[in-house]
């Protein structure tokens, strides 16, 4: 009890004195980041896995591009199996006043196989286990608002008229749907034919859901495997939940690794602050030992002190972490159907483990050294406190590796990152060390500039570490700034102004010419009308499994090489040649198809023999229809197809899109502006989430740099006292220190700008897949930010020194 009271007293005294601030703030930052990320991903995972059965819509799902499965299934007998069929497609839906692209799900009468729908109509909210009545549709709230609909209003899908009967508040089987971001409509399966939407070559997906006992589901699965064709997919509950789990695990690991930078920076700050803490406690421990306290008692006392610190930092860190995850959830709330469930124990566990590893790796080694101090120190204060840098450093490294393993759960990946970070830091600090140059004889105290330069060189190792920390802080701050300001802009500017902003699909051969005339009459430039159909490619005529290229393609046939497609190998179609097909370079690589290779194209029941005539690059971002495989028209004379095209409608002529859709009801026209808006929204949300993590990380880096700076200032304080005693003016000390830190800031800022350029390049090209840009303001802001931040911090620290008399400073 005595030890408890004593260590609590010391803890309170240390808290009040402000000496623990660095350790506390750093630990709170680390806890905030780790708990924020893990709480968020844990709740997300829980929400999804708790509803997996409902999410899938059944115990087994069979996805197919063909609707031939049902007739085959009717020849089979399965016991106790419930079965349902649905078809999914995208279509434009018209109201009296408006129109909107929607992801349509047409369900049969067995829907919903699992769970209940929550709907709302004039009478209020209600639950149902039925499918929509014939001639009626249900829509989600977003679509209802976009089309400005009231219950009972008429809407049009293709050639048919429907009544809007209810708003979907919650639906099971949300895993279905191709156009995840398009608002949802549910209609009755029997109404699909009357719409005339589904034509040859239309993008539709048939889903067959099964519910029943486990072994019978296995029988269904075995049967489905025998009739499964290319492009078909079987999903069962356990696999689906584990794949969902894996996806979330991966994204959690990705975010945690991002957060790990902040944890590591905080841990370094904790290490520096602990070193300072132990230096101050050397005499304290020596006195306690002299007074007869046992080493084990002293160890317990410090252990308790750090336990109090753990509780305090966990309390604040978890509160802030909860706030951070709430912010993430608010940002992305529109994608979550219901409120997320509360988190489990895992986030708390990983956070506590992080704190423990930080303590044992970065605080405890210092305390162990502290406890070894001889009581003779009381009598002879020149007894050196042998710091044993290497074991302390190794303990820190071991803690870092342990944290990596905790976050990634993969030893190889942990080792790669571990050596990567050590290599990057060693190269970074080493380069700065070399950049600062060799020491010259003397302190150069004759003038401020000489003195500053000499100081920069003399404290080369410490300065290199400080510059490195400031570089990371400034680099991350600049990335945060640039991401919030430029990322969206850079994505938008990568789209040319007159790029097509509307796509039209499902154009029947009968509508094709009329539609072309309509566009011409209204001066709308369109891309070519590409015929399109679904096909499978085989390398041999026998169609063995191993020769099949395992996917379906939407292929087209055209004589002209499409824009922004460049031939890499072979030749484009020519009247004088025996023409074949042209494939994209990635298809050529992936399926090892070379020029001249024979291929068999299966369209429906027909098989067309041809060969690879050319490979080409495709620009997928040009808002024109693009194709992996283009055949020569002569090969596809008798193949039925629909057409696809894209065109640009200026903003002042948007009414033309409505006119077009009214005239050609089975054609699906959708504005990409809506999609662009959605992508923009996603980029904005991801950027904000990214910024929160980056901001906290740069705060950790700044705090580390400040701690390192503060640590070096005790030596600086003594030096300035000696120099002033020897007659150096205050101005000389102030000017040289300011000049030294301005230079330090300039170097850090310049290097920080380089780090920011590298980071932004990575985010733009790899994360958001846009083109990389050069932002001039970063090269100006980096050095400026460096100079202002570093010299202000330095001014804050030095002003305290300059105010005191040299005698007082020497006595401290």
């Amino acid at each position, binding site marked *: 009890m005595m030890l408890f009271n004593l260590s609590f007293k010391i803890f309170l005294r240390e808290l009040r004195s402000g000496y623990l601030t660095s350790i506390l703030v750093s630990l709170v930052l680390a806890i905030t980041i780790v708990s924020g990320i893990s709480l968020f991903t844990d709740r997300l995972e829980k929400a999804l896995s708790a509803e997996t059965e409902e999410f899938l819509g059944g115990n087994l799902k069979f996805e197919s591009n063909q609707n031939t499965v049902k007739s085959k299934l009717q020849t089979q007998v399965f016991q106790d199996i419930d079965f349902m069929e649905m078809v999914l497609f995208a279509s434009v839906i018209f109201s009296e006043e408006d129109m909107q692209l929607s992801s349509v799900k047409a369900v049969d009468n067995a829907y919903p196989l699992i769970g209940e729908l929550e709907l709302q109509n004039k009478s209020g909210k209600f639950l149902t286990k039925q499918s929509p009545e014939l001639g009626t549709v249900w829509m989600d709230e977003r679509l209802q608002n976009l089309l400005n609909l009231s219950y009972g209003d008429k809407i049009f899908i293709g050639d048919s008229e429907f009544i809007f009967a209810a708003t979907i508040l919650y639906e099971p089987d949300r895993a279905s749907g191709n156009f995840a971001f398009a608002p949802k409509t549910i209609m009755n399966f029997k109404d699909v034919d009357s719409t005339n939407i589904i034509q040859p070559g239309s993008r539709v997906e048939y889903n067959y859901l099964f519910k029943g006992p486990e072994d019978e589901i296995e029988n269904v699965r075995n049967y489905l495997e025998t009739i499964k064709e290319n492009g078909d997919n079987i999903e069962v509950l356990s696999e689906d939940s584990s794949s969902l789990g894996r996806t979330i695990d991966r994204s959690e690991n990705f975010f945690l690794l991002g957060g790990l930078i902040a944890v590591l920076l905080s841990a370094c700050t904790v290490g520096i602050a602990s070193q300072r803490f132990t230096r101050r406690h050397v005499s304290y421990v020596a006195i306690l030992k002299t007074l007869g306290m046992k080493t084990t008692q002293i160890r317990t006392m410090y252990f308790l002190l750090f336990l109090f610190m753990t509780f305090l930092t966990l309390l604040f860190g978890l509160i802030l972490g909860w706030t951070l995850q709430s912010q993430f959830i608010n940002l992305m709330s529109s994608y979550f159907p219901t409120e997320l469930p509360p988190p489990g124990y895992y986030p708390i566990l990983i956070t506590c483990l992080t704190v423990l590893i930080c303590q044992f790796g970065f605080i405890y080694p210092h305390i162990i050294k502290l406890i070894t101090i001889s009581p003779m120190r009381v009598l002879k204060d*020149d007894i050196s406190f042998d710091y044993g840098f290497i074991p302390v450093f190794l303990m820190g490294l071991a803690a870092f590796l342990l944290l990596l393993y905790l976050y990634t759960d993969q030893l190889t990946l942990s080792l790669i990152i571990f050596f990567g970070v050590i290599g990057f830091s060693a190269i970074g600090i080493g380069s700065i060390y070399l950049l600062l140059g060799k020491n010259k*004889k*003397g*302190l*150069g*105290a*004759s*003038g401020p500039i000489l003195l500053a330069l000499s100081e920069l060189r*003399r*404290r080369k190792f410490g300065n290199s570490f400080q510059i490195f920390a400031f570089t990371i802080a400034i680099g991350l701050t600049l990335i945060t700034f640039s991401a919030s300001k430029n990322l969206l802009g850079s994505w938008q500017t990568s789209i040319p102004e007159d790029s097509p902003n509307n796509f039209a699909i499902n154009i029947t051969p009968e509508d094709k010419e009329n539609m072309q005339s309509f566009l011409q009459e209204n001066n709308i430039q369109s891309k070519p009308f590409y015929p399109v159909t679904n096909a499978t490619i085989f390398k041999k005529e026998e169609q063995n499994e191993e020769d099949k290229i395992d996917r379906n393609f939407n292929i087209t046939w055209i004589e002209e090489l499409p824009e922004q497609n460049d031939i890499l190998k072979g030749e484009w179609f020519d009247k004088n040649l025996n023409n074949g097909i042209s494939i994209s370079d990635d298809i050529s690589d992936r399926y090892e198809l070379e020029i001249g290779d024979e291929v068999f194209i299966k369209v429906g029941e027909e098989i067309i023999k041809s060969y690879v005539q050319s490979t080409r690059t495709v620009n997928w971002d040009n808002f024109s229809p693009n194709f992996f495989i283009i055949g020569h028209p002569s090969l596809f004379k008798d193949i039925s197809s629909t057409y696809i095209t894209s065109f640009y409608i200026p903003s002042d002529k948007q009414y033309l899109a409505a006119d077009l859709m009214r005239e050609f009801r089975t054609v699906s026209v959708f504005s990409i502006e809506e999609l662009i808006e959605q992508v923009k929204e996603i980029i904005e949300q991801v950027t904000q989430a990214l910024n929160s993590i980056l901001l906290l990380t740069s705060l950790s880096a700044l705090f580390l740099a400040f701690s390192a700076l503060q640590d070096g200032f005790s*030596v600086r304080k*003594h*030096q300035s*006292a*000696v*120099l*002033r*005693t*020897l*007659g*150096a*003016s*205050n*101005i000389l000390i102030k000017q040289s220190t300011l000049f030294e830190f301005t230079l330090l800031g300039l170097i850090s800022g310049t290097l920080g700008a380089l780090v920011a350029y590298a980071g932004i390049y990575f985010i733009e090209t790899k994360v958001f897949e846009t083109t990389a840009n050069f932002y001039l303001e970063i090269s100006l802001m980096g050095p400026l930010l460096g100079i202002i931040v570093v010299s202000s911090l330095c001014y804050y620290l030095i002003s305290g020194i300059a105010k005191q*008399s*040299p*005698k*007082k400073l*020497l006595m401290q």
Partner: protein
Amino acid sequence: MILEVNKLRKEVSSGEGKLVILDDVSFNLLEGQSLAITGPSGSGKSTLLGLLAGLDTATSGEIYLNKEALHELDEEQRALLRKEKVGFVFQSFELLPSLTALENVMLPSELKDEDEPEERAKYFLDRVGLKEREHHYPNQLSGGEQQRVAIARAFACSAKILFADEPTGNLDPKNGEMISDLLFEVNSETDNALVVVTHDHDLADRCDKKINLKLGKIVE
């Protein structure tokens, strides 16, 4: 006259009101003379030395150092005076740990922007018998050696007056005796005045003048 002190008083605020550290201290010192300030702990010896050297300011009274009214100067002017006229030796040596012995001794000449500071420093290091250890850092030197470096630095100042605060206080008797010999020996080669705060009676006896402080007042 190198040093003239009239009615010097130093008060500091404490929790229990004002505390008088020095009261009515007056004395003077001629060029080339040496003075020992003695007295028990807490008598105000080091405070007086700090005031005389311009490291701190008095509450009232006058100090003339080399005929300049130290009590009328601000910190920057006092720093200039210290640079030009004053040398120091401290009980705890006060060497800069990041500089070698040679660089520590070069410091005063560098601050004055004198020519060939290295040559001058080498001469004084040689004079205190540390020529062989000029590239050693303070932590590689013994206490006695560190104090010899401090003495070399004090004499490298070309000061008019040298202040030494307990120069043998941190040393064993043998090293202490060697340091006090060195201090007087080198001082006799120059025309410097020497003011020493000390508990060491032998050292005090070697000085031309002595003042003994008790509770902030001169008692003999």
